[in-house]
């Protein structure tokens, strides 16, 4: 686990801004203006860092510890582990709170464009509880951020909150990615609820590699609406799914394995297969034990050791029905071996950890492990090292 934020000491000339961290090597090549770069000199001996270099109009300079500071340079001393930020990352300086946040981490598989804190659902197990705030400024912020992301980046998620609440702002963000990051796979994590009838159609042909992850928690409206704590959500989400299909969007269905949903998981799999045959992937996902989930542990928690049969049935139904299926956030030792091929290392590195029990495990390298905030109450009783394959 590597935090996405660190305390820092910022010189007065270091202003609030989004900056691309560059090494000397990248400085030699970068087409970006100095104002958008943070020069990383942490490993460069002080005698090589001339005033000429420091006085270029950098957005920030990350100095080595022995560097004496010329008064004007926007020096930023990061606290915390040196690995928290490295060349290629994008950082946001926050002089008021004396913090630096990492908004993009080069090489990380879990980079997110955070669209909004607002959401029109209120899911029992929400890991990122929504706040009703006016944050349309994030559109502008994301457009800025996208400029600084590596064009070679393989994948980004657009998440929130509910990204479609940005309306045309989301269309702008995706259009900008199409221009600057045409080779990056974009995955929009949305509840899919159709509110503006025309919105989904605007994504038709917008980006060459765009897909949507839409949750569905039940084959009945009452079940889905209960899990997302929002009346009418099931109907809206289905309309949204068909609207996405009509706009030739690629759709993934995401099912979080909360207890009420697990109880009808096979029926849900059949429902998807019958009614949503166009989905390109179904992800069956273990619960992330943070946010609202912590308040509803008793209502939500189901031990994979107890639902192995129904999980196998659902996976079998989908796989045999021709719909690719994966298991996210479920450690291998909690799964029947027949399901191992479907298990994916899905937890973003910054919040991924292993338990002491994993030390002697022979399949740890292949296993997705746990969310860093896992507690015994959220741990399957079947967790134990796999000794032989």
């Amino acid at each position, binding site marked *: 686990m590597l935090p996405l934020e660190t305390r820092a000491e910022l010189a007065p*000339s*270091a*202003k609030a*801004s989004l900056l691309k961290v560059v*090494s*000397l*090597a990248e*400085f*030699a*090549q970068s*087409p*970006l*203006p*100095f*104002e*958008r770069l943070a020069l990383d000199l942490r490993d*460069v001996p002080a*005698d*090589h*860092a*001339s*005033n*000429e*270099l420091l*006085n*270029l*109009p*950098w*957005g*920030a300079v990350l100095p080595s510890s022995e560097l004496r500071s*010329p008064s*004007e340079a*926007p020096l930023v001393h990061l606290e915390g582990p040196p690995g928290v930020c490295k060349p290629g990352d994008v950082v946001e300086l926050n002089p008021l709170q004396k913090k630096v946040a990492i908004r993009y981490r080069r090489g990380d*598989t879990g980079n997110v464009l955070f669209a909004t804190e607002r959401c029109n659902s209120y899911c029992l197990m929400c890991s990122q509880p929504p706040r009703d705030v006016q944050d349309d400024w994030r559109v502008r912020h994301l*457009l*800025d951020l996208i*400029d600084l992301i590596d*064009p*070679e980046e*393989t*994948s980004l998620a657009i998440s929130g909150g509910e990204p479609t609440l940005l309306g045309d702002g989301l269309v702008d963000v995706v259009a900008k990615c199409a*221009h*600057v990051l045409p*080779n990056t*796979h974009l995955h929009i994590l949305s509840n899919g609820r159709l509110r503006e009838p025309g919105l989904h159609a605007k994504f038709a042909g917008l980006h060459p590699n765009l*897909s949507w992850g839409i949750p569905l928690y039940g084959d009945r409206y009452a079940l889905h609406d209960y899990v997302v704590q929002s009346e009418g959500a099931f109907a809206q989400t289905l309309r949204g799914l068909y609207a996405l299909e009509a706009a030739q969007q690629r759709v*993934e269905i995401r099912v979080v394995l909360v207890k009420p949903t697990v109880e009808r998981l096979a029926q849900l799999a059949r429902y998807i297969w019958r009614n949503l045959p166009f989905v*390109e*992937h179904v992800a069956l996902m273990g619960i992330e034990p943070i946010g609202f989930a912590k308040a509803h542990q008793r209502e939500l928690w189901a031990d994979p050791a107890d639902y192995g049969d129904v999980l196998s049935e659902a996976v079998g139904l989908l796989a045999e029905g021709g719909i*690719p299926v*994966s298991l996210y956030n479920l450690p291998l030792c909690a799964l029947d071996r027949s399901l191992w091929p479907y298990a994916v290392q899905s937890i973003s590195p910054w919040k991924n950890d292993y338990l002491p029990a994993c030390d002697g495990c022979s399949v740890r390298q292949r296993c997705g492990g746990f969310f860093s905030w896992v507690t015994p109450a959220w741990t399957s009783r079947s967790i134990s090292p796999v000794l032989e394959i």
Partner: protein
Amino acid sequence: MSNALMIVGAATLGTLGTEPPKGQSDLSRLSEMDGKYATVLSTSLNAGRHNLYAGHRSHSSHRSHSSHRSHSSGSGSSYRSYTPPPATYTPPPTRYTAPAAPVAPAAPRTTGTGSSGGNHLNSYPTQNLDPATRANSRSTNNLTLEPGTYDKPVTEGRDADALKLLIMRVQAALYSKGYDPGAIDGVLTPETQSALRMFQLAHGIRATGTMTTPTLDALGVRL
């Protein structure tokens, strides 16, 4: 053309994406796409660009010594507070021309100091500030002051800054490749020249100790 490296990199990485597994036909389509780009690599980084600086031997040989502000002392010489006509240099009074490249749109992000915050944006012909054109900006990233991009009477100060910046980029690249150019200060010092020579020898480039185009290509420094 000069986007080739980027595109090949992206195409290769693209095959390792986190998407659901692809079928055989997708794979062969990808390799077909790869093939299309592979040949482009034969074009070198700075092909077709005119390298004004290939012959630049040392700092003192440059005509406009006076406009290299800032080796003497630190104060008042920062790029940060740069205003186009340096004190020691009298520009042709009427003909100053701003760079042709679009610079204004991103101006609100001023991270410079105080009042000069907006000014330095105009002083760097190498930097394209318009986010919308960034994807293409590698090809417009223009240190060479190509004819046509700028009006003829380019000020000496600008030229000198561009040279100094190029030397700094070369020094940075040398340093990051394990050759010691001494301080990264935009001055072609004997140390930097000898680092250049070592680099050139190791890469089978004629060891001139100067910034020839093949040397810049091998260093990954864009003109």
